[in-house]
C-alpha cells in the first residue's frame, strides 16, 4: 500500500542513484536496473517512439553495461580528465502502478539539474526524470528511466556521464 514511508523510500532511492553517479560508481549504478531495464534519453520533447525517432540514448541493460564498462576504461578519450558531476534531484512525485509479478510497481516523476565539470569546461543539464520502478525486497529496481532533457532537440556537445 502506498504511504509516506514508500514516498520517502523512493526519494532515498533516487538520492542513492544520484550519489552513485556522482561518486563514479557506475557499476553500482547499473545494479539499480532490472535485467531488462531500459535507459531512455529522447531527442525531442514529448517523444513517444524510440524506433522511428532517433534517441540520444535508448539502451537496455546489455548495451548499458558496455557504456558503463567504457566509463571504466582508461583509454576513453572523452573521459580524460574524468568528468565530475553534481546531480540534484527534486520535486519527486510517486504514483502507485499496481503489481508486477507480485511486486509493487511505481511511476515516479522528478526534476533534475546536473552540472558536469571536465577540465576547463562546465556544462549544465536540466530536465525531467520519469521512472518505472518495482519493489525488490527492501530496495527498488529500475524498469525504465526516461531522461527528458529540457533542450533535448538543441545542438549539443558530446555527453559522457549518464544523467
Amino acid at each position, binding site marked *: 500500500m502506498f504511504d509516506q514511508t514508500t514516498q520517502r523510500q523512493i526519494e532515498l532511492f533516487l538520492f542513492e542513484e544520484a550519489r552513485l553517479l556522482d561518486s563514479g560508481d557506475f557499476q553500482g549504478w547499473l545494479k539499480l536496473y532490472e535485467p*531488462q531495464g*531500459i535507459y531512455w*534519453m529522447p*531527442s*525531442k520533447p514529448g517523444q513517444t517512439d524510440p*524506433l*522511428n*525517432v*532517433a*534517441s*540520444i*540514448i*535508448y*539502451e*537496455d*541493460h*546489455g*548495451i548499458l*553495461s*558496455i*557504456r558503463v*564498462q*567504457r566509463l571504466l*576504461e582508461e*583509454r*576513453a*578519450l*572523452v*573521459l580524460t580528465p574524468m568528468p565530475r558531476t553534481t546531480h540534484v534531484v527534486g520535486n519527486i512525485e510517486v504514483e502507485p502502478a499496481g503489481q508486477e509479478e507480485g511486486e509493487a510497481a511505481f511511476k515516479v516523476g522528478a526534476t533534475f539539474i546536473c552540472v558536469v565539470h571536465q577540465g576547463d569546461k562546465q556544462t549544465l543539464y536540466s530536465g525531467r526524470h520519469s521512472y518505472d520502478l518495482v519493489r525488490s525486497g527492501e530496495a527498488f529496481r529500475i524498469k525504465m528511466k526516461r531522461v527528458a532533457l529540457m533542450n533535448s532537440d*538543441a*545542438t*549539443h*556537445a*558530446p*555527453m*559522457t556521464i549518464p544523467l
Partner: protein
Amino acid sequence: MTEPHALDIPTADDIRGLVRPDHVHRRAYADPAVFQLEQERIFGRLWIYVAHESQVKKPGDFVRTRLGGHEVLVTRGEDEKINVLINRCPHRGARLCMVDQGTSRLFSCPYHAWVFKPDGSLSSVPHRQSYPASFDLNDSNNHMQRIKQIQTYRGFIFATLNENPEPLLNHLGAMTEVIDNLVDRAPDGEVEMGESYFSVEYRGNWKLHMENAADIFHPSFVHASSVMPARKAPANASILDQDQTREMLLANGFGFKEWEGIQLNGLPGGHAYMTNIYSNGVLVQKEADPVATQYRASLVAKVGEERTAQILGMNRFNNIVYPNLIINAQYQQMRVATPIAVDRTLVRIYCFRLKGAPDEMFHRSVRFLTTLGSPASMIFSDDIEMLERCQQGLSKDEGPWVDFSRGLDSDRRDTNGMLSGAASEMPMRVQFQAWLNYLTAEAA
C-alpha cells in the same frame, strides 16, 4: 561574425605557402583570415547541399539551414518550385524564421508585419498608404533575398552563392554513384529523410571532421574504449536491437587483418570514399537475418535478382562529397559539417527511410544514427575529443606543420583519381589539393 574587411585576406601565394605535397601549415586550420577566404571561395562558390526534397514535399514546407555565411530557408513555393531564401526581412534586417523546419503559407516579420510568400516575394505590408508612391511590392529589393542557383540530384537539393557555377553534375562527378545507390536501395525508388536528426557542435575547424571521415587508420586507437568493452560483452545480451550496437562498436576494432582489402579512393575536386569495408557482423547481410532477407525480397520483387545483387553489392563507406557532405548508402546515413567559425563546426547527422522497404530496415537506420551520431555516442564523442585536441594544438604557434605523408610512396593513380590502401593519408592530400585549387582560383 567578423566583417569581411576586418582581416587581411591571404593572397594566392600565401595559400600556396600553406600546402606542401605531404604537409599542411597549421594556419589552414587556425587562421581566421584563411577561414574567411574559405567561406568566400569554397562555401560561397561550390555547390553546397542544403536540403532533401522529402523535407519540403508540399507548398509552404520549409527547412532552415546554412549556406556560406548565411542562414537560409529552403522552401517549396505555391508553384511547387524549390526556393532558397536568406532568412532575413529586407525591411529592417530582422531574422524571419526562428524554427528549423515546418510548414507556413506565409512568412511574416513580427516587427512591422511585412508578409512574404514561400517564394520570398512580398505579399503585403500594413498601412500601405504611408509608404512612398514609388514603393513597389513587386520590387525584388523588397523581397527576401533569393539564391538564384539551385539544382537537385535525385531529391538532394544543392545551392550555391556562385552566380556562374559549373553544372552540379560536373561538381559531383563520380559521387553521383553513391546518391544513386542510396536511392536505388529503396524498393519504391525513393528515399525519405527521417524526422529526427542530431546537431552536434565541436570546437574545431570543419576540415578536421572531413579528414577524420576519410581516415580508417584512427578507429582502432581512438575507439579502443568502446571496442574493448564490446569485445568483453556477451553476444545478444541486448534485446533492443539484435546486437546491432555491440557489433558496430566491435567493427571499429580495425587491425591489420581488417585493413587488408580496404581501398581508399580520392577523386578530382576533393571527393573521397572507402571501398570494401565492414565485412563482418550486422553491418553486412547474414544468411539468417529475417529483416535483411525480407528487405532483399522486397527489392528483388521490384527490380529483379540481378539488379538487386548489383545494388546491394556496392560497398562504399564514408562517401565524402567535397566540401562538407558525407553519405553512407548502405546504412542510409548522411552528415553535413557546417563551418561556424575557424574553430567551431556544426555537424548534422541524418538518416533516410527506404520507401517500400520493411519498417525494421528504417528502425536499423535510426539505431545506426543514434549509435554513430548521437551526442552521447560511444564512438562520435571520442572522435570529437580528438578533433578538439587537434584544434587546441594547432591554435598554438609551435611546430607549424601538420604531417600527411603516410602512404605517399605507395599511392597509385588511375583514370578516375587516386587509389591507396587503408593506412594511407592520400584522401587528405586529395582534399588539400582541391582546397588549394579552390582558394587560389581568383575568378568564380
